[in-house]
């Protein structure tokens, strides 16, 4: 293609993967249209594009999950056509797909090793298998019992396990589709260390992420897709971020700067903001230690903490997903017991799960149905939302959140990951919540949409909605929150006004639980090489 730059500057070797003129159509959507794509050994390559641009589809085309309508794929010079991931794997392409695709009913070790388990007496060598997977996990800085059930772990841990599985294969090509979407800075750093060492062993690595910082830190080269078509292939060092963003969305992006200015401007006036909801000594055995948390109307509270620190667990108590076994919850001064999400919703508390596939979307229903679901459930069985109203709701959120394809009758299952997340968000916004609990709401969402969502949260908060915001991306937490609550080891260790807080001071807090000044923070810990996900 003509707009591929730097053709002659680099590329000393021949590509290991080469896809030419790839087209894939789904009923009603042309997901890929004549896309060219290539990867070289020993490089980290990124695939960039907005939600629904076709990144995951291209990956699935390469690994044989989808058959291609047109085009050719060559691997190490030989033309291939895989009938499924098993074949691709055998040919040396190891993949972590966007949604975590592991088996919750099996142990962590099996999830890592299944398919290549060590043998013993003609059967599986369980001990060797556990040992090997423990090593792999340790290599990613993760300390979990390989014998434990996968389903017992949080999504972030599962994501790491999926990565561990992929890097254990002696692959020529390693594909990671948004592997870091729920990882913390530390985990990302570990992952990058592994990626670099693989790259040095001449593995070609495809790294898809919406975090530009990460892309700029780890990648050598990137390919940009827009609306299923190829925009171009670039060397990362030669492409300014601002240009990249422009190539991805096809126009200038201004909203983010906008937001930056307003971020701290909105400060809740303590005097008139009544505490909307307040948890006192709220806890659940084995999940989260009793903790206090008041949230004022119109306030955005961020939850910060490491992987497994208990943010999700705490949020679930507030959202009525799990029942608290100690403490109490007051909503506008009235003590309530939330036994089911339904009761929470009746009080206008919405909880948006981090695990959108298993706990969020209803895949075989349409976009419209998914958006009105919670609202309808709240109204009851026999007061259907009129069709016209449903369409209006769906249409307005499709527009507000830029959900694509914008067809309310599309099955949510067929949407790209980021767009599914937006649908989920729309569902909760539709019930006009007083308290919106967002657990990793920007997971897998592209920068444009992320800015939109952040803006939306702001506007809603201004109108009196409280928000509890959880994100692995500390900058995002800082940008949005009026207050930040820090969790560590399932304890609330700090509750701070967001007033001069920085990522580094937060990191210190998260790491050792002390409120440190900025200077101390800088002195005590090396600023992590990966600053999470900044979008500036």
């Amino acid at each position: 293609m003509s707009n591929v730059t730097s053709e002659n500057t680099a590329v000393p070797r021949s590509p290991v993967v080469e896809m030419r003129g790839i087209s894939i159509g789904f009923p009603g959507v042309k997901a890929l249209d004549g896309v060219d794509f290539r990867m070289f050994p020993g490089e980290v390559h990124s695939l960039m594009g907005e939600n629904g641009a076709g990144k995951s589809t291209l990956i699935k085309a390469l690994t044989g999950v989808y058959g291609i309508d047109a085009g050719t794929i060559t691997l190490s010079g030989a033309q291939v056509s895989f009938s499924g991931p098993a074949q691709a794997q055998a040919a040396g392409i190891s993949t972590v797909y966007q949604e975590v695709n592991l088996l919750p009913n099996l142990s962590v070790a099996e999830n890592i090793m299944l398919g290549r388990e060590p043998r013993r007496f003609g059967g599986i060598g369980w001990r060797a298998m556990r040992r090997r997977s423990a090593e792999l996990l340790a290599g990613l800085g993760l300390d979990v019992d390989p014998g434990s059930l996968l389903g017992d772990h949080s999504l972030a841990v599962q994501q790491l396990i999926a990565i561990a599985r992929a890097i254990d294969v002696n692959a020529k090509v390693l594909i990671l589709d948004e592997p870091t979407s729920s990882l913390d800075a530390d985990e990302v750093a570990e992952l990058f260390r592994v990626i670099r060492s693989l790259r040095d062993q001449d593995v070609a690595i495809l790294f898809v992420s919406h975090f530009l910082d990460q892309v700029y830190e780890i990648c050598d080269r990137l390919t940009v897709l827009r609306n299923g078509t190829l925009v171009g292939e670039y060397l990362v060092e030669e492409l300014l971020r601002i240009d990249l963003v422009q190539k991805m969305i096809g126009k200038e992006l201004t909203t983010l700067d906008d937001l930056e200015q307003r971020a701290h401007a909105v400060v809740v006036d303590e005097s008139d903001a009544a505490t909307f909801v307040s948890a006192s000594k709220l806890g659940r055995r084995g999940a989260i230690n009793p903790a206090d948390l008041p949230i004022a109307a119109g306030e955005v509270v961020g939850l910060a903490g490491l992987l497994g620190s208990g943010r999700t667990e705490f949020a679930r108590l507030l959202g009525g997903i799990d029942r608290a076994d100690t403490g109490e919850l007051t909503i506008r001064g009235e003590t309530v017991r939330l036994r089911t999400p339904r009761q929470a919703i009746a009080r206008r508390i919405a909880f948006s799960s981090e695990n959108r596939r298993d706990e969020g979307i209803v895949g075989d229903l349409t976009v419209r149905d998914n958006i009105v679901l919670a609202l309808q459930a709240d109204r009851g069985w026999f007061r259907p939302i009129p069709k016209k109203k449903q369409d209006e709701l769906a249409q307005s959120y499709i527009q507000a959140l830029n959900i694509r394809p914008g067809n309310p009758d599309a099955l949510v299952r067929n949407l790209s990951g980021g767009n599914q997340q937006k649908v989920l968000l729309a569902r909760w916004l539709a019930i006009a919540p007083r308290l919106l609990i967002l657990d990793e709401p920007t997971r897998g969402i592209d920068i444009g949409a992320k800015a939109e969502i952040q803006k939306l949260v702001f506007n809603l908060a201004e109108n009196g909605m409280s928000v509890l915001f959880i994100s692995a991306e500390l900058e995002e937490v800082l940008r949005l929150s009026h207050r930040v609550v820090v969790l560590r080891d399932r304890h609330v260790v700090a509750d701070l006004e967001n007033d001069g807080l920085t990522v580094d001071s937060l990191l210190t807090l998260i790491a050792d639980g002390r409120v440190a000044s900025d200077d101390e923070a800088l002195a005590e810990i090396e600023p992590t090489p990966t600053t999470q996900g900044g979008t500036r």
Partner: protein
Amino acid sequence: MSGLAKVVSHRLFWPIVMLLVLFAINLVAFPGFFTITVRDGQLFGSLIDILRNGAPTLIIAVGMTLVIATRGIDLSVGAVAAISGAVACSIILGSPEPGNLATVAVAVAVALLISLVLGVWNGFLVAVLGIQPIIATLILMTAGRGVAMLITEGQILTVNSPPFKFLGSGFWFGVPVAVVIAAVVFGIAALVTRRTALGMLIESVGINPEASRQAGLRARGLLFAVYTFCALCAAIAGLILTANTAAADANNTGLFIELDAILAVVIGGTSLAGGRYTLFGTLVGALVIQTLVTTVYTVGIPPIATMVFKAAVVTIVCLLQSPTTAASISGFRRRLAARAGKGLAAS
């Protein structure tokens, strides 16, 4: 996609084709198959028989569709049908005036009420105790038939009550009453689930229970509702079956009808894995099954080959319906088109 391709790729295309093929086979074996005459102001003919005899299966299949949409299954429908028939007949027999309309009304009402209790029982086991539906309803399937036999003491209770018999073999404006009842049940189910939010909520629970719970759905209530409705359908079917022969046969009423009902649902395109359902598909499925049975009789397939014939028909429908077949057909068509295109280009 061209219009024709769209029709062919519709889920119900092949079941309907199969229905037509069965009709054609019947027509060959018995030329009067399509003839519908009016005799004493009543419609009379093979097609009417198919509708009438298929009514109980259809009614149960409607309830079953909703249960299946929630990812459940109800094996107890046959037993519930037997109980309702037994209850109604024993009430009518026990009354001094079996032919009285009021007596029959009471009997029918009591039978339906009891079925509601049975449905709630199933719902309780599934929704509250969390027992897997197949086992939860297996309990009632086994014990329920015992209960029905307890009521009839193992005898066939023959009732002589014209109003009751009317339910099974009467006519209403020329149309068999059983067909009218089935149409009403079908219509109500379709209206209630599609005109209210019920249908969507049921599907949601069937597709992703946890997500539905978090979205604030009352999954328990829904499960209670569908199992109760299914039991009610079973009871209505049981009354029709019983009234058809004017005798309650606790052993045989509704025996294996759960299989027919499930088969109808699945042929109609509703997945046993729960989720999206289509009542119209169920209607087609039920018709296919009943036509199959009637075909066996009219065509004179020997009893020993009946089962093999059934297996063949079910297999053929399923294979034709399969997405794999659809894909290879469209692939074939595309190749044909490509060849034609090349031909054109060459010339």
